[in-house]
């Protein structure tokens, strides 16, 4: 199942609309998503953004160890495995961010004393990794039938030294950028669920990036809807 979504949004009020795959105008890379590709997990999804690809598997609601059980809601665990090497501190911090986002959205109160585990495997990393992980996790949770109060998506923005905003940056653009900001937004009112930022930026630039991310998230949610409709139309 593929969906090619290209969006150009004008961020600088003075410049005209720029066309071009990754020019000064902002565009999201090509998306693709596949669901239910693994036989063992209760839900699985693979999400591609340009060359970045993440595979997610969800197990749950399943048994939980007595030491980890919470009496009134489900215990959510996220495991992120990098492409090579052992998981380190960066993976742990990304796991925590993804877990906080999922906890805000999953209706854990319907399954107390159970565990919902999301396992993410990085297949290839070409920039915007955290956003791709969030998207893959959301699609896998939907595939597993875990009850949620909304869908969520991740969008990354990068600000370079002249202040130009780039959405969905590649690895090279992230490295040369002055600041990289990742936002997780929900589908109901595009509210902010999680944000993580790195680098130097001003208050006005933050608001600008957030607005651009909210616009971009509309396209991501439309893509979700199309790929889920395609999945259910086959049966």
């Amino acid at each position: 199942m593929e969906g090619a979504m290209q969006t150009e949004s004008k961020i600088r009020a003075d410049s005209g609309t720029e066309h071009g795959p990754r020019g000064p105008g902002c565009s999201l890379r090509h998306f693709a998503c596949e669901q239910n590709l693994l036989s063992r997990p209760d839900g699985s999804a693979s999400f591609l953004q340009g060359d970045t690809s993440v595979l997610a598997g969800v197990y749950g609601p399943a048994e939980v160890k007595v030491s980890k059980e919470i009496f009134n809601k489900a215990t959510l665990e996220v495991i992120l495995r990098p492409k090579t090497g052992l998981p380190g501190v960066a993976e742990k911090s990304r796991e925590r961010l993804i877990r906080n986002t999922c906890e805000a959205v999953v209706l854990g109160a319907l399954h107390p004393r159970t565990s919902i585990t999301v396992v993410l495997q990085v297949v290839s990393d070409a920039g915007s990794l955290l956003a791709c992980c969030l998207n893959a996790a959301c699609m896998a949770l939907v595939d597993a039938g875990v009850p949620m109060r909304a869908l969520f998506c991740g969008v990354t923005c990068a600000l370079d030294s002249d202040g130009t905003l780039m959405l969905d940056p590649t690895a090279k653009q992230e490295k040369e950028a002055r600041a990289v900001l990742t936002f997780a937004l929900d589908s109901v009112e595009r509210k902010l669920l999680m944000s993580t930022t790195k680098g130097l930026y001003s208050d006005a630039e933050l608001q600008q990036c957030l607005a651009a991310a909210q616009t971009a998230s509309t396209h991501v949610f439309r893509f979700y809807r199309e790929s889920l409709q395609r999945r259910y139309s086959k049966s």
Partner: protein
Amino acid sequence: MAEAAGVPAESLAGCRARAARTVLDQVVLPGEELLLPEQEDGEGPGGAGERPLRLNAAARSRGRVVCGPGLRRCGDRLLVTKCGRLRHKEPGSGSGGGVYWVDSQQKRYVPVKGDHVIGIVTAKSGDIFKVDVGGSEPASLSYLAFEGATKRNRPNVQVGDLIYGQFVVANKDMEPEMVCIDSCGRANGMGVIGQDGLLFKVTLGLIRKLLAPDCEILQEVGKLYPMEIVFGMNGRIWVKAKTIQQTLILANILEACEHMTTDQRKQIFSRLAES
């Protein structure tokens, strides 16, 4: 946020609530809100609170709308919590407003009271058996919950046996409990499932499809070989035919039914009937 003013407000507002009637049999996503038929009247030209007077009796029998799997009550609206197709069933005897639910495809089973399931006995502790039903907790089954069982006459159940039973207690807060007798004390097909045969797992949606009344697949499969078959709502099917090869063929057909179209299935059945 003056620079971003070019973005129209509607695109950021997300989906506003839609009437449930207009979305029937369409794919709905988690987070969508649905309006029930009563609420749509209030949103017509009458405005807030005014309802057009109706003189026909049908308008009065609105009654209770039952909110099925995949939907939650959220204020006076329905919130969709799972992705799938929205379905509606009209009330049979006129009372109540019918049932709304979401048909979703899932592999993981969550115990529901009254469901008949196939479980595997994993432990015997004192007077109860622990039975694995595929949910988050093993269900408990008392040894007295079999037909004709008394304290002196214990049922012959070992660890590893297959049990077909139904849930009497199944909610999110308590450990699920199952029994192998119905409310009159009769087994009614439940109990320990016999020797041999093959147990395999399919998705929950396929089981519901196979157990629907007038299922074509089942009628066609029944014509192939003489066999015994037990369906558990937890996605487990037990099949037994005369030879091992026939059993395996039946298991493969039922697993593949999910992905095949009607024509492909008819082709395969006709090929098997010939050989």
